[in-house]
């Protein structure tokens, strides 16, 4: 349990002791260090650890490793371009190098968010630092929008300066190079995207071998990895609500496939949990935003390539360049909309999409002794970590303890919300 820190040290960040006892439903939660069998605290079974990543969480390190590799690659390419641009004295190449610099900035933001999310919670920041992920993703997306605007502006500038200064061929070549770089990084960051259909629990093995085991959060093809992830995924996914989880998956194209996988495995609950852990790549939102950034850049590179080709062949059709750039910028913005919507929903403390509130209310009200519930608030601290608070009114003769146990158990079992605070009131 958390203890309140003495006032003298309240201003420093404190390490909060977590003593948890292993309860009856211990199968759902991983054993935490320092279990204390004496206290009978129901308040946060296996949960406080949830609010601050353990330092060696494999997912986080995988994501960070990916991003670091991407940053290094980016910097290497950028220096190559800068040197080439200075040598050739071409503004286009330097502009492209500036775009790569913006990529680096986006990766830095994502890296920082990932790292900062692992900081320990303190009394001032009682929910841990997970929100930093969301804010970092928001900043990234704003940068994407900004860059799209800058690119449109550049296209307009090219339109105005139509006195042959702009060499179409050079533009084409530089943006082709940029495209190749971006594709490499997109593959590195978001490997599961293009192969979503193949990612059944078995196919994941095949793909995994080609790359190191980082990319799939849920695709651990090494079995030890698997078991480590199982618990995580059981934390996050209610098995009754896998459908809603798929909604939240950022890849729209994998949605229908995963549905079919679900239906075929829903017979055996326990087994299906493990299998789901395999095939559900719950991608970290920061890696995903970096991936979106790179994807946006490659789409824009394609646009610039088309514009360059047009200017190269027919220098008088400048307007097509502008139109192309506009179209591609709009496409880039469309890719960010879904993620922006997720971010917005988390920041507005709205009920996460994967939780079915009506079913929750019905289930709670159907319990013994529960008369009514009100003030039900379900919100997420970050994508995947959900908290709940509620007032439950019970019959005057009911046993508050038992009802509390039941309610907490129900919420945890069926909706996998591990942080629930229930205020029991009597009629």
């Amino acid at each position, binding site marked *: *349990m*958390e203890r*309140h820190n*003495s*006032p003298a040290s*309240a*201003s420093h960040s404190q390490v909060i002791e977590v003593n948890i006892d292993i309860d009856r439903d211990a199968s759902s939660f991983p054993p935490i260090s320092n279990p204390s069998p004496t206290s*009978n*605290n*129901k*308040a*946060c079974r296996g949960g406080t650890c949830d609010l601050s990543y353990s330092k060696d969480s494999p997912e986080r390190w995988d994501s960070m490793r990916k991003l670091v590799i991407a940053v290094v690659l980016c910097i290497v390419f950028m220096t190559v371009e800068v040197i080439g641009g200075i040598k050739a004295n071409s503004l286009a190449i330097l502009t492209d190098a500036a775009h790569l610099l913006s990529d680096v900035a986006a990766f830095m933001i994502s890296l920082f968010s990932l790292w900062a999310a692992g900081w320990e919670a303190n*009394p*001032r*920041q*009682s*929910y841990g630092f997970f*929100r930093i992920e969301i*804010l970092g993703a928001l*900043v990234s997306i*704003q940068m994407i929008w*900004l860059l799209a*605007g800058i690119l*449109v*502006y550049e296209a307009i*500038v090219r*339109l*105005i*300066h139509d006195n042959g200064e702009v060499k179409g061929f050079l533009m084409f070549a530089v943006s082709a190079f940029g495209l190749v770089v971006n594709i490499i990084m997109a593959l590195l960051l978001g490997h599961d995207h293009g192969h979503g259909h193949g990612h059944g629990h078995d196919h994941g093995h095949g793909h995994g071998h080609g790359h190191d085991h980082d990319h799939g959060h849920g695709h651990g093809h090494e079995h030890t990895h698997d078991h480590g992830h199982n618990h995580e995924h059981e934390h996050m996914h209610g098995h009754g609500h896998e459908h809603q989880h798929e909604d939240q998956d950022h890849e729209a194209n994998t949605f229908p496939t995963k549905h079919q996988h679900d239906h075929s495995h829903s017979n055996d609950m326990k087994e299906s949990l493990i299998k789901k852990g395999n095939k559900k790549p719950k991608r970290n939102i920061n890696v995903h935003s970096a991936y979106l950034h790179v994807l946006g850049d490659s789409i824009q590179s394609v646009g610039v390539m088309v514009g360059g080709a047009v200017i190269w062949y027919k220098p008088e059709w400048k307007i097509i360049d502008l139109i192309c750039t506009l179209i591609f910028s709009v496409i880039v913005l469309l890719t960010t909309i879904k993620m922006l919507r997720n971010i917005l*929903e988390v*920041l*507005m*403390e*709205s*009920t996460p999409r994967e939780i079915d*509130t009506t079913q929750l*209310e*019905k289930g709670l*009200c159907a319990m013994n002794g529960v*008369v*009514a*519930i*009100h*003030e039900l*608030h*379900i*919100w997420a601290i970050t994508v995947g970590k959900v908290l709940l*608070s509620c*007032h439950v*009114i019970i019959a005057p003769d009911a046993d*508050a*303890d038992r009802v*509390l146990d039941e309610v907490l158990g129900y919420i945890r079992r069926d909706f996998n919300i591990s942080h629930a*605070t*229930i*205020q*029991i*009131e*009597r*009629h």
Partner: protein
Amino acid sequence: MQEKKDATFSYQFPDGDRRLAFSRQSSFRHWDPPLPSPSPSPSPSPLLRSHSFKPYLARSDSTVGMPLLEKPGQKDATWVALILAAVRGVANGSRPMKRLALMISLNVAYSMIELLLGLFTGRVGLVSDAFHLTFGCGILTFSLFAMGISRKKPDETYTYGYKRLEVLAAFTNALFLLFLSFSLAVEALHAFMQDESEHKHYLIVSAVTNLLVNLLGVWFFRSYARVNIVYWKPEDMNYHSVCLHVLADSIRSAGLILASWFLTLGVENAEVLCLGIVSVAVFMLVLPLFKATGSILLQIAPSNIHPSAFNKCSRQIASLEEVLEVSQARFWELVPGYSIGSLSVQVKKGVHEDRILQHVNGLYNDLGIQDLTVQIDYK
């Protein structure tokens, strides 16, 4: 540091006699959540009833809780209907909303003119300025949208209501201003390295017009024209961010004009100097707002309550004889002025929870936590 509410923002009787309209609102104080079960008992003590919001008709409201805009995300809303709803929302909105809408339309008109002029005469500077303005307008429109939608009542998905959007809009504004200051610094660096100074001269007219429009905006929001403000309501943050936005824009225009003038005077590197100063000024201006909005969005404990007060409260609770332990106390601010918390109290068996709930709620209400959920565990 009380901020004075001057008479310009008189919301009580903005237009027409709406005095009686307040009392006709039967449900303006309560919010009855949609429940499948029979509604909560008629006579729990008021503390236990713990409504989630203060009266909706706060001083800043001038309409009577009408749904202003269609719920965002409805797939069947046609564009025309949306625009009509938006116009209606602004027309019914509070005075700052109207002023902001006026400013945005001025800015949009001006940037359109600038863009067309730039395209036809082939001047890149005008086009870049127009883009800059358009971005700023977009952000201001988001602020306007937040103002309009923040008055919607909480519903199924947004159980805490829509007021957070104002904080988010303020954060977006602050972020944009940070980007602006960064880009100005880059521009200064660019001018320093390139050593060209030709492209500032013909932007004078546009800079002057920009300055005038932005000064008008500063005048509209002049009670928020300070760097450090204590935020009492969520709208405060939004208005502050809008004011800082126009203030930063006007500083930038003034800087450009100044740089141009210095160049005609023959001062070397005038551009670099002016742009650098402007960049630093905007950065310092926006940093407190950014920190404040960021800390709300990050679920940091309420900033207006000292952490030792929390400790004192929990110790007071723990000192009751029935209470064994207080744990898991977490507090956060939904919007400035409304704090929410949850905590867990371990008590001895057989203790009636009413008394404890009342006591705990009373303690934390005094601190300023409006919404508290207390979980009582029996040992």
